[in-house]
């Protein structure tokens, strides 16, 4: 008897779901973080303006979330200067604040704003840097994230990753067999969640294109797994593969010209490389075991993947030209879904420790293997594009939630969605399309 599959596809970023906002709580860490004061920004126009104070709040929340900074609570500020000449550095020194951020928002043409901010070294009483950034009401939060990036980079020497986004899958059940699965994209702080695909069939394995403009994913609509590529700006999508059997685990090459993927069309799961423009396929692995979950090295010369060719799933590495894979993971009896840190030096993966599934990192030079999470069913780790954090899926009670840990293991945080299960987070790359919302 034929089954009918209902499918509703909501394509395009223009469609806003009444998606609940993610909230983030830092569950561990903050010792040794740099004390900083971010004063609420002032509005310099007449009458009701944009929520200028929010700019400072977003900046402070970003810096706090990184685990590297400890922003002073607004209530503890002895003064709230918004201009350089109003700053009293002695007050701030008394509070042991090392850096100060002040700023304002002013009108800038029809519908436009100009955000200015200044970063000070409190001890020296000097301005370190200052920027003027044109924006709009819609992009005010995005501008705040960019300010946080500039501050983070100025003070830590490493680029920030606040003005990036995450893709993730949500699932809500209504009744025993009814499930709504959605692929969503939100800002890296969980705000502005938008649904880009919605279905009653499974959606899996989102993967950002290196330019951040497209997402590849697996969808089971019409009871057949297929790999799709969807343009974020327009919502247009294209089916890349729908062979008999598995069509899974898409992964873009660093230059975006190729896509590694898993197909079982020849009998069992092997990894193939597709030339995206030509749609031509070549096999990368040929083995009677499960070979899946390919991930590219940042230099594009090799890939890692999961294989149980040795009897249990482990991580193997193979040249982009094929050949004999070499085993990379040796710790424990279960290691899967590896991916590289942005500098290529580390891998993150799912590992089994005493029957618990956790997130681990493996330093490819020192061979240092570290378990980074404490859950029971942790999965899908993904590096931030600056390598500072890992985001992954875990469980809190009966719900799937997202969590993040700093790569040094110091700061743990949990991202909570109000309803449903959240899973398979993937951090976007740096290069973003112009926002068009």
């Amino acid at each position: 008897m034929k089954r009918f599959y209902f499918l509703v596809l909501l394509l395009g970023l223009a469609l806003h779901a009444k998606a609940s906002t993610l909230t983030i709580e830092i569950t561990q860490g903050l010792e040794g973080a740099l004390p900083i004061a971010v004063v609420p920004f002032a509005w310099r126009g007449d009458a009701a303006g944009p929520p200028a104070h929010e700019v400072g709040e977003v900046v402070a929340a970003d810096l706090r979330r990184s685990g590297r900074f400890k922003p002073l609570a607004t209530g503890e500020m002895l003064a709230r200067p918004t201009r350089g000449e109003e700053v009293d550095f002695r007050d701030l020194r008394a509070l042991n604040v090392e850096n100060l951020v002040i700023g304002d928002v002013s009108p800038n043409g029809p519908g436009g704003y100009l955000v200015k901010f200044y970063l000070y070294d409190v001890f020296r009483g000097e301005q370190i840097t200052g920027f003027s950034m044109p924006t709009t009401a819609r992009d005010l939060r995005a501008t705040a994230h960019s300010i946080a990036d500039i501050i983070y980079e100025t003070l830590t020497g490493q680029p920030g990753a606040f003005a990036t986004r995450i893709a993730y899958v949500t699932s809500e059940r209504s009744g025993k067999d009814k499930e709504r699965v959605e692929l969503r994209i939100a800002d890296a702080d969980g705000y502005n969640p938008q649904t880009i695909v919605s279905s009653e069939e499974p959606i899996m394995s989102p993967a950002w294109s290196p330019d951040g403009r497209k997402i590849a994913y697996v969808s089971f609509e019409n009871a057949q797994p297929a790999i799709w590529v969807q343009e974020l700006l327009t919502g247009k999508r294209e089916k890349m593969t729908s062979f008999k059997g598995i069509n899974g685990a898409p992964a873009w090459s660093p230059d975006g010209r190729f896509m590694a993927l898993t197909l079982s069309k020849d009998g069992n799961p092997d990894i193939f490389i597709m030339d995206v423009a030509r749609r031509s396929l070549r096999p990368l692995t040929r083995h009677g075991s499960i070979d899946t979950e390919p991930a590219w090295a940042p230099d594009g010369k090799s890939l890692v993947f999961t294989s149980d060719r040795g009897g249990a799933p482990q991580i193997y590495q193979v040249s982009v030209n094929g050949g004999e894979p070499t085993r990379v993971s040796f710790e424990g009896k279960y290691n899967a879904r590896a991916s590289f840190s942005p500098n290529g030096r580390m891998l993150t993966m799912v590992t089994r420790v005493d029957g618990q599934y956790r997130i681990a990192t493996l330093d490819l030079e020192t061979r240092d293997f570290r378990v980074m999470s404490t859950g029971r069913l942790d999965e899908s780790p993904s590096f931030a594009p600056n390598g500072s954090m890992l985001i992954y899926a875990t469980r809190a009670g009966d719900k799937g939630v997202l969590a993040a840990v700093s790569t040094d293991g110091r700061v743990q945080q949990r991202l909570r969605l109000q309803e449903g299960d959240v899973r398979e987070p993937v951090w976007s790359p740096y290069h973003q399309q112009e926002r068009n919302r």
Partner: protein
Amino acid sequence: MKSNSSAWLAIAMSALLFAGCSSTGTKDDTGASVEDRGSSGATTSGIGAGGVWTGNPLDNPNSLLYSKTIYFDFDQSTIRSEFVDVLRAHAAYLNSNRSANVLIEGHADERGSREYNIGLGERRANAVKSFLAAEGVDDAQMNTISYGEERPAALGHDEVSWAENRRGVLVY
């Protein structure tokens, strides 16, 4: 959905009446089996005089064919001996109904990574398919799909639920 369920109930009731059974709407062992197949509509079966099953043999609760799910051990795709008879019954059914097709779903429990579990689920679906093929079922009658851990039958996060989710399902 509410109006739908009352429609199914109406169909179910009429089926019961047609079968000449109790009109209270309750189902007993000798009564009609009414199966709701979701959006594709309801199918009803009746028993003829003398207790001989005249409906679709796949819906006969007293037949091995009624079982359409078999379970697997952790990280395994070997057919457990207790399910051999069920699969043989399905093979016999498919062999005597060459126009019948079956979709074999393979599933995994939630532990570990999702795409690897898709691989495991496929291995289970293929194990069922190979068994049926060895019993003479034509390749063209069988299709497989792996849902990995994406379609759990039990929603718990413990051994009991995991055991229910490591399964192969025959969908006709």
